[in-house]
């Protein structure tokens, strides 16, 4: 008979957490009045919010169970999947981010449409919608299974409960709710994971110490090069470090929207840098730590030697935590799921509205119409996700099929995006055939795995599934390059701002004028509402403030609440108008009624003003 873990106090803590998150998320409904706010949060957030909230998206519902399991079985090399994104960081920060930020695209398919042609956009839309909605279902299913194992809740109803909670706040608050709840959930995840690891180390002092109890072979950060087939270095490198990392950072619609929600491109870059250099390392310890502690507990004779990898995290947590604290760990598990599902729902809604509804069904309608459709699409995405749970439960082949589909689409999409944003010569036909031809060749490799032999790097045949990503990247890359060389290059005007070395043109289009990149400082001023009849989108500051910011008339400024921890909730972008001439107002920033409402400012409010470019 299945053993149910936890006490009523644990369940109370977990339910309390759900209620808190929903209340917190729905609070942000007041900040969501337009589709731009629903999908991009009004592009107002500082780097640290973007960076932390990404951690919650990165850590999926399965992460604690999966990586703790790998950590228990193989030791520190469980971190291989996480801490290897540094290799792609330059391309992400300096090729991909400027292109999407300045071209104002709302979705990956929209980028494919602008950079290539409508049929590539259609292929991208179909792929992404199947991927996103199927992935919602998979996340709900895996959490349902986890909660069923832990506290005996039926898989389906556990999934329904989580989906309902997440949908409520996504529908209400859109991207703003997603970002703020993910920020909170990131802290919960990290505190629970790191807390368990550190608590375990302290506890094990009385049993000889963690380091002595942890097997020597587990202390390597990398696994053996190509053995065993189930877990080896080179397979994980190509699957996770290269294919999945590129997929996460470049083709994940939710991540793209997250980085576009930053107040400036500079903040997007800072968010990515901090995330990869600092937070991912912390997240990898948080997700694997439970498994490492479980291994030491087994060595100390405190947990049975028969403990399996899948049980490692939960058993270690249950052993170490008092009632109530275990509930907090359960909350962290659900936080990992909700923060992934909310991002996926918002992302699927963006693709549906932007790439299906707006271009094909209702072309010209007021923004409030599209906002309504976006909210309905979120609900529909959640319903489809829930409907997939019993299907995944009943037909394991469908669950596996979605996994195979994801593995199949990832390399061609990654190649199309990387070549698209870095190579001017790369053509529309090449992109289309990269996607289609790459997917066909990936499917063929599932049927005839002998195709993977040249890429196997010595891995035994039963582990070749790891290396399929390398095969996919190579064949898709070859298709892309060969078709490009035999087709006419795109016109220079068509790719302006959409590819590396045309970013400056993108910047000029974004601003509507030459960028001013002189480095200035922030000015601290107070809001004064005035009548600005000529143009409502401008703010005016004193000549001294203009000089401090190194700003000129017409430059793009960002005005935000002085309190940094408000995270840009009270903020707006505006153009710098002519400097103020009234000396008594030199400590003020003149703001129109429209901007007062958009930025949610109050008369006399202390604000920071900075030049963006």
């Amino acid at each position, binding site marked *: 008979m299945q053993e149910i873990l936890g006490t009523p106090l644990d369940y109370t803590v977990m339910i309390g957490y759900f209620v808190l998150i929903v209340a917190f998320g729905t609070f942000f409904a007041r900040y969501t009045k337009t589709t731009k706010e629903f999908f991009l949060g009004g592009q107002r957030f500082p780097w640290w919010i973007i960076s932390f909230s990404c951690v919650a998206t990165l850590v999926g519902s399965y992460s604690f169970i999966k990586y703790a399991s790998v950590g228990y079985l*193989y030791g*520190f*090399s469980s971190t291989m999947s996480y*801490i*290897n994104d*540094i*290799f*792609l*960081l*330059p*391309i992400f*920060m*300096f*090729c991909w981010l*400027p292109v999407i930020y300045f071209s104002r695209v709302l979705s990956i398919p929209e980028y494919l449409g602008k950079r290539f042609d409508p049929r590539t956009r259609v292929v991208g839309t179909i792929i992404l919608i199947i991927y996103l909605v199927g992935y919602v279902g998979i996340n709900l299913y895996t959490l349902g299974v986890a909660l069923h194992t832990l506290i005996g809740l039926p898989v389906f109803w556990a999934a329904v409960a989580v989906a309902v909670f997440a949908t409520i706040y996504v529908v209400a608050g859109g991207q703003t709710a997603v970002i703020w709840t993910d920020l909170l959930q990131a802290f919960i995840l990290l505190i629970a994971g790191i807390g368990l690891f550190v608590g375990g180390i302290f506890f094990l002092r009385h049993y000889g110490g963690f*380091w002595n109890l942890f097997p*020597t*072979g587990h*202390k*390597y*950060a*990398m*696994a*053996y*090069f190509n*053995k*065993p087939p189930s*877990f080896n*270095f*080179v397979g994980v*490198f190509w699957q996770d*470090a*290269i294919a999945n990392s590129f997929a996460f950072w470049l083709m994940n619609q939710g991540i793209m929207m997250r980085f576009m929600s930053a107040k400036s491109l*500079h903040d997007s*870059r*800072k968010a990515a*840098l901090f995330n*990869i*250099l600092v937070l991912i*390392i912390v997240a990898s310890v948080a997700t694997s730590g439970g498994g490492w502690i479980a291994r030491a507990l087994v060595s100390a004779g405190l947990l049975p030697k028969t403990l399996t990898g899948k049980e490692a995290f939960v058993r270690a947590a249950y052993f170490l935590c008092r009632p109530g604290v275990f509930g907090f760990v359960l909350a962290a598990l659900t936080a990992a799921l909700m923060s992934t599902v909310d991002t996926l729902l918002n992302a699927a809604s963006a693709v549906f509205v932007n790439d299906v509804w707006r271009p094909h069904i209702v072309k010209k309608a007021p923004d409030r119409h599209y906002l309504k459709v976006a909210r309905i699409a979120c609900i529909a995405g959640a319903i489809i996700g829930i409907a997939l749970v019993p299907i995944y439960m009943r037909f394991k082949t469908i669950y596996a099929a979605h996994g195979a589909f994801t593995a199949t689409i990832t390399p061609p999409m990654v190649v199309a995006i990387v070549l698209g944003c*870095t190579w001017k010569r790369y053509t529309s036909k090449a992109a289309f055939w990269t996607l289609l031809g790459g997917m066909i060749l990936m499917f063929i490799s599932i049927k005839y795995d002998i195709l993977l032999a040249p890429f196997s790097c010595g891995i035994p045949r039963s582990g070749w599934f790891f290396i399929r990503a390398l095969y996919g990247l190579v064949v898709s890359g070859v298709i892309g390059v060969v078709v490009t060389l035999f087709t006419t290059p795109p016109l220079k005007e068509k790719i302006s701002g959409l590819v*590396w*070395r*045309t*970013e*400056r043109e993108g*910047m000029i289009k974004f601003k509507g004028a030459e960028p001013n*990149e002189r*480095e200035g400082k922030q000015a601290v001023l107070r809001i004064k509402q005035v009548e600005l009849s000529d143009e409502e989108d401008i703010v005016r500051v004193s000549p001294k403030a203009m000089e401090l910011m190194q700003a000129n008339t017409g430059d793009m400024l960002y005005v935000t609440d002085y309190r940094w921890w408000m995270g840009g909730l009270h903020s707006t972008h505006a153009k710098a108008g002519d400097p103020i001439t009234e000396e008594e107002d030199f400590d003020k920033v003149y703001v129109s009624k429209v901007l007062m409402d958009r930025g949610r400012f109050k008369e006399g409010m202390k604000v920071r003003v900075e030049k963006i470019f």
Partner: protein
Amino acid sequence: MPTPTISSLLYPYIVGGVLFVIGMILVFKSDVVDLKLRRYRIMVIWLIAGYFIYLAIHSFFFFVAPRL
């Protein structure tokens, strides 16, 4: 599980290193990155430092940690 060999440490920093260097070349040749500006300079320094920080962490857990 067999004890890892040096190839597990070198492979990512050579193969991934090639990718990283290509990325850095794209950064240096970009038409918006002006290294005279402090904000770009700091980012580029952190990017390069990041590569070596990761290499140092992995080297520590390859050469030192298992022998402690």
